[in-house]
């Protein structure tokens, strides 16, 4: 999985591309979020538009990132869920846990 990082309106946006799956994608996501926390970042938006597959380990990693950031007083939100990722979050009922937005502008506005 490829992760690009950028900052917009004071929020760090992670653009994820590819598979969030066991052994590689999940580890990459964990390391990216841990690095942000180490750098003192507390507003994180994860853009999932180009994610093709998310397995149970990938879902676990998203949950872990969410709880870690939240427990440190930060915010982690999701934007641009592709249909199959949306299906997974619906099926696992995690759609009720995450703050999910359709557009990046809406998501960024929610941090203020």
């Amino acid at each position, binding site marked *: 999985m490829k992760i690009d990082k950028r900052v917009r309106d004071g929020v760090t946006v992670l653009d994820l591309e590819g598979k969030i*799956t*066991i*052994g590689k994608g999940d580890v990459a996501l964990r390391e990216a979020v841990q690095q942000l926390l180490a750098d003192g970042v507390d507003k994180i938006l994860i853009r999932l538009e180009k994610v093709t597959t998310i*397995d149970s*380990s990938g879902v676990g990693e998203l949950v872990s990132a969410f709880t870690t950031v939240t427990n440190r007083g930060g915010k982690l939100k999701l934007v641009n869920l592709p249909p*199959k990722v949306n299906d997974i979050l619906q099926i696992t009922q995690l759609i009720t846990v995450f703050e999910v937005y359709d557009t990046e502008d809406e998501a960024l506005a929610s941090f203020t």
Partner: protein
Amino acid sequence: MTVQELHLALGSRFENVELAQAAVDEVIAAHGADEEARHWVGLAVREAIANAIQHGNRLDASKRVDVAMRFSGGVVEVEVADEGEGFAPEAVRDPLAPENLLRTNGRGIFYMRRFMDDVVYGSTAAGGTRVVLRRRIVDRLEGSQER
């Protein structure tokens, strides 16, 4: 001629999950599975193999995961067996229970049961875990009365 059966013997490394999924995907695509079926079967197969590697063989690369795929009458069947010490699937927590929703693991079997028509757990002769996944991937076979 399309492949009716596939057998893979994998070392317990996560990169082999990709390999096995790709092999199964190629076969079910050749049998007419649509993109939806290919995606969800692929995810379920990934979960079964990842569980065998991680929880069954406990990441011991010298232990094998056997994958057998059969295709018959529009139904794909994938059997995954490990060399672990067995497993009681009924002991797994319900990942949808409110107290488990924020757990970071424990969703693999849920994935399999959700994406396949039938998931059956059993044991190998050596005491490892064997799971058999089935899903109808073609509604009706051309030239047959089967549904």
